[in-house]
């Protein structure tokens, strides 16, 4: 087959089409710009024309308070990050474990399968805040001397891991079930055992496929680490609360909120990137 050569000079018709597209593109950009400007102006004037705006802007958007409260909020955010790292590791481990337990077919594993199923149903239904209370105040209440005094952030991490493992287990299970049955059959007919088929063929593909929804759950987890403050851990939210009390001004909450958003943006972008990358390989393995 001979390679097709690029055309040296586009035809008259093509040139006029290109010119038309160029104009249309410029027009679209201009319209988008004006529309955005008008929209922002409408929101802005709508806001400042409210009767309480001057009071709200003073108590929520006060620059000196923001600057003064930043160090403590930032320090708290470091605790949130530490909790996040451990929770993500724990959630990945237990989520995958629960998902795999649910796929076991051997009758000897029946109790484990049942446990996984009940666990997932239970913790997907139970509000996270109640899990936090139960773990945060229940475990210390057991007065297990050998455990010593457990810091609030550790208890918070445990509670977050317990709840999120249930969600992530369902994501992993969906991934496992989405792998085409032929892949499993192909592995089995090569003589691979059930366990090896799972470990070497099904799971690696399933995990890749569910990476985007998994990242979504981790974005949610990333902001929910702020809830450990209700157990008394001095994180960003609790830090902000202390500053709010000190200055009698709500601005530190806004500061903490913005920091959480800033923290989420890289994760969200990263999730988008891997989704796009995975989509390009979606057709792999098919001969069609």
């Amino acid at each position, binding site marked *: 087959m001979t390679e097709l050569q690029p055309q040296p000079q586009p035809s008259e018709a093509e040139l006029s089409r290109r010119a038309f597209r160029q104009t249309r593109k410029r027009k679209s950009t201009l319209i988008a710009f004006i529309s955005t400007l008008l929209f922002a102006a409408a929101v802005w004037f709508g806001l400042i024309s409210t009767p309480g705006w001057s009071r709200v802007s003073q108590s929520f958007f006060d620059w000196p308070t923001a600057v003064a409260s930043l160090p403590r909020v930032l320090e708290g955010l470091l605790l949130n990050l530490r909790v996040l790292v451990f929770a993500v590791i724990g959630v990945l481990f237990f989520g995958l474990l629960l998902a795999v337990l649910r796929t076991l077919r051997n009758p000897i594993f029946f109790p484990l399968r049942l446990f996984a199923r009940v666990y997932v149903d239970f913790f997907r239904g139970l509000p996270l805040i109640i899990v936090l209370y139960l773990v945060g105040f229940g475990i210390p209440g057991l007065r297990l001397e050998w455990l010593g005094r457990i810091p609030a952030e550790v208890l918070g991490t445990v509670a977050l891991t317990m709840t999120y493992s249930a969600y992530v287990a369902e994501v992993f299970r969906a991934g496992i079930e989405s792998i085409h049955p032929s892949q499993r059959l192909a592995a089995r007919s090569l003589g691979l055992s059930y366990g090896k088929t799972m470990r070497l063929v099904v799971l690696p593909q399933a995990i890749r496929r569910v990476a985007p929804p998994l990242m979504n759950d981790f974005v949610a987890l990333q902001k929910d680490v702020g809830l450990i403050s209700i157990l008394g851990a001095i994180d960003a939210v609790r830090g902000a609360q202390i500053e709010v009390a000190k200055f009698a001004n709500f601005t530190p909450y806004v500061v903490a909120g913005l920091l959480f958003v800033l923290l989420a943006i890289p994760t969200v972008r990263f999730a988008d990137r891997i989704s796009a990358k995975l989509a390009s390989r979606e057709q*792999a393995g098919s001969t069609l």
Partner: protein
Amino acid sequence: MSPIDWSKPRLRVRGLRKQYEDKVVLGGVDLEIYPGQIVALIGSSGSGKSTMLRCINLIEEISDGQIWLEGEDISVAGIDQDAVRKQVGMVFQAYNLFAHLSILDNITLALKHVQGKTKAEAEEIALGWLDRIGLADKADSYPDKLSGGQQQRTAIVRAVALNPKLLLLDEVTSALDPELVGEVLELIRDLKETGTTIIMATHELSFARDVADWVVFLDQGVVAEEGEAAEFFSNPKQARTKEFLTRLKR
């Protein structure tokens, strides 16, 4: 061409039945295949070709009958299915290759994890096969970068590399574009020289006539007619066979 060893059948099937609820897919099939033989399984869609292959590979539970592999009853209750499948390779219509593994790793996976070969041994075998089918330069590519024909050829050598006692090919060309069918058939023809024992369900009648030693025509779940390939196609005995062959020729 390696000679066929007629002393002892590699596979023996007696009275194989498969039914779901009230639908009978296989209604008592007898079959014998000898080492080195290539058997073509033909018949219209729904005649039970695929089901038969899946029963032999123990993917489907059979409803009645018996199957022996080299004299050992593999349909007996409590048989180690993994052990049987280590000796019987199977390639499907599509989605055969593992999408997350390179072509080389697709072939070495079972060599390493089933046969316990070292990485170096497995890769030597795999590269030998890839070289043979002209895909050595694709060893590090992933399946999505290969054409359908290249994927199917890789799937076939992945099964053959394990030296199976029996290779089952389930319509391996049906999902391919017509211009890619030829290269896959060429590989099967090539395998004949290596003495691999093959049962292939196929719609490629001229290929079956060319390469198969024996042709089995399944119709509505039973063997309607079987015979030496040349004789079968030039001189079919049963009315059903004649009808099927003329229908496909048209």
